[in-house]
């Protein structure tokens, strides 16, 4: 009998408290996430509490501001400040908090805030003929620039620089934020975040951003060669295989040494590579599709973006050039 009432009470209490604490959430998110850049104005970001930084942006409308915060901008704002697991509402609360802290002349942010929801209310408040023309009405001259910015924002996203590359703040994320692990799973939070382990390891430009071969060479790590015996030593074979390749691309030097430090002969021979000179047809297409070298390179070992790690032996250009000269 009382259960529905209790639920209603709890629910409404929760709803009310959510509203009341929206400001608190905004402050919280700001102090944990946004503060990294917005405190000092890193990468040209509008600084916290600086009205001059915020005025032109707020003039462009809160909707545009939310959009930039949620989806990022080509100028450097990462989507949700790089914390993609944040709820949209929390991000917006943080934006509101920062805008409020900028203490802009009252009418502006208030009028703008209402914009996305109540177009009519906006018209009344603005009371200017231009308001009818543009959705984001210019009130003061500087807002014209902001309007242009806001309207081109979506188009600029499509052409944003290095759109397909992962920005630095999205690499090596801790498990609850990495997009694969379920943050609702208790075990996820017990897992080690990669960066806490990678700290002292030599860096590379791709993959985990760790140079694993160097890590062993520098004795930063000493992974076991045997499951039970920590003292087992790998059987290392130091033999380079040179593969001549077409065109002007440097020839490939395949080092058995680095591979046998990690692997056993049987891992590659004979299933993936026939141990005989000239017996293996290898192409970049096959590698990209996960065959030959691509069985590991592009999955766990460094990916094919690191061309010169393999294509490392310069061709004798004199020899290459002679036939061309003779042809003339």
């Amino acid at each position: 009998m009382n259960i529905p009432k209790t639920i209603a009470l709890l629910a409404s209490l929760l709803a009310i408290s959510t509203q009341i604490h929206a400001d608190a959430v905004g402050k919280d998110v700001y102090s944990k996430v946004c503060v990294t850049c917005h405190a000092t104005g890193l990468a040209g970001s509008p600084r916290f509490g600086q009205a001059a930084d915020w005025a032109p942006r707020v003039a462009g409308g809160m909707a545009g501001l939310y959009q930039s915060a949620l989806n990022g901008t080509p100028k450097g704002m990462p989507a949700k400040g790089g914390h993609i697991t944040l709820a949209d509402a929390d991000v917006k609360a943080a934006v509101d908090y920062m805008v409020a802290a900028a203490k802009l002349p009252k009418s502006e942010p208030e009028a703008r805030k209402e914009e996305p929801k109540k177009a009519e209310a906006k018209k009344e408040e603005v009371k200017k003929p231009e308001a009818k023309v543009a959705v984001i009405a210019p009130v003061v001259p500087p807002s014209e620039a902001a309007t242009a910015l806001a309207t081109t924002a979506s188009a600029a996203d499509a052409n944003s620089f290095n759109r397909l590359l992962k920005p630095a703040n999205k690499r090596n994320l801790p498990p609850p934020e990495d997009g694969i692990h379920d943050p609702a799973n208790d075990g996820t939070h017990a897992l080690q975040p990669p960066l806490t382990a990678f700290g002292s390891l030599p860096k590379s430009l791709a993959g985990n951003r760790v140079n694993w071969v160097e890590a062993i060479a520098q004795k930063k790590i000493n992974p076991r060669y045997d499951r039970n015996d920590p003292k087992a030593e790998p059987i290392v074979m130091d033999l380079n295989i040179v593969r001549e390749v077409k065109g002007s691309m440097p020839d490939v030097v395949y080092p058995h040494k680095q591979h046998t430090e990690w692997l056993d002969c049987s891992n590659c021979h004979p299933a993936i590579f026939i141990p005989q000179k000239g017996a293996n047809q290898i192409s970049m297409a096959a590698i990209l599709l996960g065959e030959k070298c691509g069985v590991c390179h592009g999955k766990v070992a460094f990916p094919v973006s690191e061309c010169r790690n393999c294509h490392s032996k310069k061709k004798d250009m004199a020899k290459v050039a002679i036939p061309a000269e003779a042809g003339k």
Partner: protein
Amino acid sequence: MKKLSKLRAGFLAGLIMTIFAAFFVDINDARAEYGDVVINNYSDGAGMRPVVFPHWFHRMRFRCKVCHADLGFKFKAGGNEINMVKIIDGQFCGACHNGEIAWSVENCNLCHSAKPNTPTQVHESTVQKLAQPTGASKK
């Protein structure tokens, strides 16, 4: 009046649940650590979260040879048909995850930690990128 309050309660509860759901269910592009393998041969069917195998964590402790030669793991995500019976029997993961070399199978949620319905994959692999360009729906 009572009916109305009931209705409202239901609505509010629904609203709150939606908010919570939006908080936890994050439909973003998957972007785990390079080389993380998701194995979902049987997990979804068994009502468990799929398994995430972190290559980086294991290669800091063991060379490839230990698992891929000695223990017989094939170089193929989901290609080993691992199940809990085999693991408890000491095969595959169970060769180490036995409470002696590494923690044992009662820590279900440490491995079974992927978001439900995540397909089997080598995460961030070149093949994955070629087959599913950025922006494509991940299904």
